[in-house]
């Protein structure tokens, strides 16, 4: 009974930030692209929503499972894919920003232990005002819809 309850409740909790108040940044749909064994660099994606009245600025992230986590952005220029570090990412009040394939993502470097498909990996997002948001990302394979970009800029 309890196990069943957990089975239904857990997915609801997954990927949601543990936020103390209503104005704290909200992170949903966090996932890490499952990578072949031995891969040293992975990417994490999520949607970042700013419900507050002030802009929020993401300055970095960390995970106990990786030696380093960096903010990156993929850009396509004249057909050439370039990946560049992003020092900060700001989200205006009431806006949401998709960290998705072909755009912003967290680059997870040097896994300390092998990362397996189906695992739940903790990530902590750091914001300029000192806020820290804990997220749990699921490791899964990409789906075709993850690759359809929704850039409304």
């Amino acid at each position, binding site marked *: 009974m309890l196990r069943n309850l957990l089975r239904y409740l857990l997915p609801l909790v997954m990927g949601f930030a543990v936020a103390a108040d209503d104005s704290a940044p909200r992170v949903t749909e966090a996932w890490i*692209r499952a*990578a*072949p*064994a*031995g*891969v*040293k*660099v*992975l*990417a994490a994606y999520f949607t970042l929503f700013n419900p507050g009245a002030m802009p929020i600025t993401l300055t970095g992230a960390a995970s106990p499972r990786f030696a*380093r986590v*960096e903010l*990156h952005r*993929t850009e*396509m220029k004249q*057909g*050439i*894919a*370039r*990946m560049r*570090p992003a020092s900060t990412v700001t989200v205006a009040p009431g806006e949401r920003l998709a960290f998705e*394939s*072909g755009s912003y*993502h967290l*680059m*997870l*470097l040097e896994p300390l232990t092998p990362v397996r498909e189906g695992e739940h990996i903790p990530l902590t997002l750091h914001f300029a005002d000192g806020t820290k948001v804990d997220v749990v990302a699921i490791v899964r*394979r*990409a789906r*075709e819809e*993850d*690759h*359809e*970009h929704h850039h409304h800029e």
Partner: protein
Amino acid sequence: MSRRVLHFTVIIIAFLAGVLAAMYTRRTAVEPPPLEATVLPLPRALPAFNLIDHAGMPFGPDRLAGHWTFLFFGFTHCPDVCPTTLTTLATAVHALDDLPPEQRPHVVLVSVDPERDTSEILARYVTAFDPSFLGVTGEPGAIATFAEALGIAHAKVPLPEGGYTVDHTAAVLLLDPAGRLAAVFTPPHRGATIARDYRTILTHFAPAD
């Protein structure tokens, strides 16, 4: 009298319908559906090359003969664009499973990071996307010459926190069974679109030789 007119009208209409039907059939037989891929007016032959596949075997022009090949340039330390493209290509080839084996495309990832991408690393990497995929690496100079012949730009760029990334053209290339560059697919890539375009190219643009 009116009956004769009616007969005449029926004959005329039948004739016109026949002409239209013939025109339509002819039209569809000749004109291919629109493509998102760019088909080269003339397939471009490649200069000889000498690379190494993920099993450590030589990979030269003979390895491109007798089948169509999707070629993508990337590297295994690439967390976003490369796995996305390989996943898309896996979707595309699965959508082409119904074709006879000799018409099914092969998929080859050529590493633009030969320093880090050894045969062993590539073997583990590409086969995770599809067991049929082949990884190719080689001497940096040989990779550069091969990439240049195919119009693929690539450049190593240091990262501020250490290490480096590689900028590279994200296009998927289609080589014909004579090992010539036949078509270019530019991003964003979609598996279903690549599969659809491949069928069109096979039907309407396949080389006569």
